[in-house]
């Protein structure tokens, strides 16, 4: 049999997809790593400037958003578990098999819709927070001020907000891509499309979890410093 | 202008090193050249010899060619490692001498700005793109930049030091040969980067002293510093007679300062400049942080003048050397 049309075994496709995604996530981790290094520099050199600036971030929205993302991570993990039922199985094709796969498709669709909805909720809350930051003058530049604080903000406060906008901005871009991908898979699952296969849902879920992990690490850096006294 | 024993203008040779650090660097470079040269030559000869001896069709013994030999591999792993670490240690030792500035070094403030060098001697004599220094005495250049990164490079001294805006960097050398030497900017800083050049003139100490005094009559850097010390209002708090409880500045440079958060550091130019621009950053132990920041009110040149005055106060107490 010639090499051309030999379909790859499921296990190899699954392993290739998962390993490939983890290598990609390694590169993404170093991509955000550069930002964490910049934050480390800023924090060690201008500690009181960073603390003064961080007091002006909205910790309520930040905390809610963290909870939203953690919950969305749970649901996408449940979607992956549900998708395991869609693996090519050697059970005899028939009504029972078709019903089992339909209910699996439905469960995957529901979990993915919930995850995407939570993602959208995060984006909405983030939009509200950005608008509030804008009105508070927390945008580094000539008109930079720390909300209602009088006097020139301490050195380093402007740097904090440079990092705040770049970090949360890049995270939001990644999250928007994630919501788009999950929505596409959710539509595919609800239509029981055949391209909705476990390896692909796994990869989408891994990407979503990564975006969640980045936020988990951003949260203590951007929202919690300077809260105590 | 070329100081070496060059032949004609077109082909110049750098000539022997003109600073103490330069002579050591030349020795290191010579040894590096000899060691690497012999190894490279040996390799080239080996390759050519193998190529000729074992070219296809040549009558040569090719029985059971070795394809690996861990003893040989270990040998040519550990030997280069040993040689390399030897070279590293020697070079690192010489480099360490560069960062230990002799106490009696003659301080000169250097300001690099887009496409010129401003150099200020202690008595206020200013030079543009030129530096006159006495033979045999260590000279300490305190380098500051107002815009992009420059690099103070004197090939004859085999020395260069980047000039980074926002911090002072220090370069010291002891000239060992008389004459004029090229000064270049070695870090790209804009369109006229290649015009930001000049010369360093090493003179006999007597000639240098005469040259220093004969300069245009401008108040000394320290005197300007004192003037600023009063006009900016520093004397209101820091003067001995003032009632405000503020740290004494006399002889501050070089003194160990104990800070409120328990750290203690040797006061250097960076520390004085920092305390003027960011007083609340390193509060001296036993004082409360009431000093206002002068950021935005003083330029780099004013800061250099103030620092020279603080250095000069130290001299009055210890006989005013230099």
């Amino acid at each position, binding site marked *: 049999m010639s090499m051309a049309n030999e379909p790859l075994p499921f296990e190899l496709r699954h392993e290739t997809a998962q390993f490939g995604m983890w290598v990609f996530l390694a590169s993404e981790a170093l991509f*955000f790593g550069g930002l964490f290094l910049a934050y480390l520099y800023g924090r060690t050199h201008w500690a009181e400037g960073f603390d003064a600036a961080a007091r002006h971030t909205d910790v309520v929205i930040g905390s809610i958003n963290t909870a939203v993302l953690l919950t969305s991570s749970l649901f996408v993990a449940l979607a992956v578990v549900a998708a395991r039922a869609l693996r090519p199985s050697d059970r005899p094709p028939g009504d029972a098999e078709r019903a089992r796969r339909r209910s699996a498709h439905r469960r995957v669709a529901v979990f993915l819709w919930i995850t995407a909805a939570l993602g959208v909720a995060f984006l909405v809350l983030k939009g509200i927070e950005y608008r509030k930051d804008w009105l508070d003058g927390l945008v580094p530049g000539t008109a930079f001020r720390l909300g209602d604080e009088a006097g020139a903000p301490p050195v380093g406060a402007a740097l904090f907000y440079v990092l705040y906008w770049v970090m949360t901005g890049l995270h939001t871009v990644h999250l928007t891509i994630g919501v788009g991908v999950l929505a596409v898979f959710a539509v595919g699952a609800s239509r029981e499309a055949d391209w909705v296969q476990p390896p692909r849902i796994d990869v989408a879920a891994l990407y979503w979890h990564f975006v969640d992990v980045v936020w988990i690490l951003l949260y203590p850096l951007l929202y919690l410093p300077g809260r105590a006294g | 202008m070329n100081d070496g024993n060059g032949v004609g203008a077109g082909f110049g040779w750098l000539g022997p090193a003109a600073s103490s650090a330069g002579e050591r660097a030349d020795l290191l470079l010579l040894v590096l050249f000899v060691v690497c040269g012999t190894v490279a030559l040996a390799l080239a000869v080996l390759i050519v010899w193998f190529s000729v001896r074992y070219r*296809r069709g040549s009558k040569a013994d090719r029985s059971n060619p070795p394809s690996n030999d861990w003893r040989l591999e270990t040998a040519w792993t550990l030997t280069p490692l040993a040689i390399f670490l030897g070279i590293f240690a020697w070079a690192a030792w010489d480099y360490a001498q560069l960062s230990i500035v002799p106490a009696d070094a003659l301080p000169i403030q250097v300001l690099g700005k887009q496409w010129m060098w401003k150099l200020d001697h202690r008595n206020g004599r200013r030079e543009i793109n030129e530096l006159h220094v006495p033979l045999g005495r260590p000279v300490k250049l305190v380098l500051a930049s107002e815009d*992009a990164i420059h690099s103070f490079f004197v090939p004859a001294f085999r020395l260069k030091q980047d000039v980074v805006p926002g911090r002072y960097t220090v370069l010291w050398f002891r000239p060992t040969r008389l004459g004029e030497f090229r000064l270049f900017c070695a870090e790209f800083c804009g369109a006229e980067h290649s015009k930001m050049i000049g010369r360093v003139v090493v003179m006999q100490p007597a000639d240098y002293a005469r040259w220093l005094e004969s300069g245009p009559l401008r108040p000394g850097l320290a005197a300007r510093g004192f003037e600023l010390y009063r006009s900016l209002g520093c004397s209101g708090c820091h003067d001995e007679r003032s009632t405000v409880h503020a740290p004494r500045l006399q002889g501050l440079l070089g003194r160990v300062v104990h800070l409120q958060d328990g750290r203690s550091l040797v006061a250097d130019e960076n520390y004085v400049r920092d305390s003027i621009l960011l007083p609340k950053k390193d509060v001296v132990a036993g004082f409360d942080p009431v000093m206002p920041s002068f950021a935005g009110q003083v330029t780099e040149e004013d800061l250099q003048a103030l620092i020279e005055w603080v250095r000069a106060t130290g001299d009055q107490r210890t006989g005013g050397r230099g």
Partner: protein
Amino acid sequence: MNTVTVDRGPAPPAPPPQSAGPSYLDDGHTLASWFATHDHKRIAILYAIAITAFFAIGGIAAAMMRIELATPAGDFVSDDTYAKLFTAHGVIMVWLFLIPSIPSAFGNFLVPLMIGARDLAFPRLNLGSWYLYVVGGAIVLASLFLGGLDTGWTFYTPYSTMFSNGWVVVALTGVVVVGFSSILTGLNFIVTVHTRRVPGLGWFRLPLFVWAIYATSLILVLATPVLAITLILLAAERLFQIGIFDPAHGGDPLLFQHMFWFYSHPAVYVMVLPAMGVVSEIVPCFARRRIFGYRFMAYALLAIAAIGFLVWGHHMFVSGQSPTAGMVFSMLSFLVAVPSAIKVFNWTATLYKGSIRFDAPMLYALGFVGLFTIGGMTGLFVAALAADVHLTDTYFVISHFHYIMVGGSVLAYFGALHFWWPKITGRMYPEIWARMAAGLVFFGFNLTFFPQYLLGYEGMPRRYHAYVPEFQALNVLSSAGASILAIGYLLPLFYLAWSLRAGARAGPNPWQATGLEWQTSSPPPTENFASLPAAPDDVYGYTPRLGRSPLHVDGE
């Protein structure tokens, strides 16, 4: 048209390739068959064409610089234009030619063939990487045509953010896009080598070229993201006039240098490791000898990739970095020189008791070994702290990295081009012309760059548009060498194009080389192999491993 097989002595046991359908070149001639192909071989050709175009543009910029530097006074171009020239030369040569040249062109073509695979792990991602590369390259070219930028390929702040008025942000975008293409290419290779090897092909039976591409891919995936984020922070700082590198707001220009060189030093190993892989394939083939110390060579490749990440601080010895950090980076830089030394000794030892032919690929390979040795040795000069204080930012450093990048990587690229030309096109190149071109390149290169070592020692700073008169003689020599080098580079363009039409047909294995890519027809069919190839039980079977019967009679 007889099939020429150069008389090499008996071939290693190559199973006769059955006919497996049309070659990949004849498998469709429409535009879509090229620009929407998933075949790694066609994507490799697309890369090769784009790379040659960018090499030409970068070369033109270099030629104009050499004309400018022939005279002390800057009279050929204005100082601002000169700054834009060396920036264009740097950005194009680094990101658009050297980094993708061997990995994306030859790696794409050969890795699946060498491991007996049908294609890379992610064919569509491979095509996507090519489009990212071309789009990124187009954006960089757009920034040059709009007016160019004068920051140098290193974009040092605060000049690039506060004082440069060139099209910096557009060029940065182009480089970031090309960076993502590198990441995805690296990812593709890593997964392919891990999961697509033909059953039975263990890691230590892989050709060293596959090891080299694997080590390079590790660097691509782990270093390029840091470049991407650094350039994004730089673009943000330039647009909003405030950022983490801005000294006027408490930022640190040295932080940019740390993050930039964290990528850019491993990047120079991305440029040289694939070249080492190519030489490790060519030298055994033309010396008819098993590579000496195969395992040491494989581990040396991984060691260079790993230690390459620890040494970036040697670019910053005089930049204001603390002396302690300088010493740490200097020692680590000496450590990374050891594996390179091992590789040079092993290539030389491979010639021992060989039966050496001096075809064009071998000339390029031996040229690589010689020039890489000189480049590596002068690397020790600039890694030694006290010497670097004098030598950094002068023409000594320029000559050092050109010896490794041009004397090393470009020579190996041309060696690979000639060695695998029969496999890629099914045609043989004209041997005499090729050897002449190799000689011209070798001579022209040395005449161009050896005088720059002397200029550097004399203290001529880099990136100088006009220089003091005493540097003129050596600069004239260098410019003369550059013209010869240019001719040497143009010759292959002609005779290789000629060989496409009128070159002798090459059989499946014209060099009698070992390796799976030589066991399929030339040019190979779209699915690479008629049937699943058997994993070779020996990776460089030119001479017997210890104790097996000799493969070829001595002194034939």
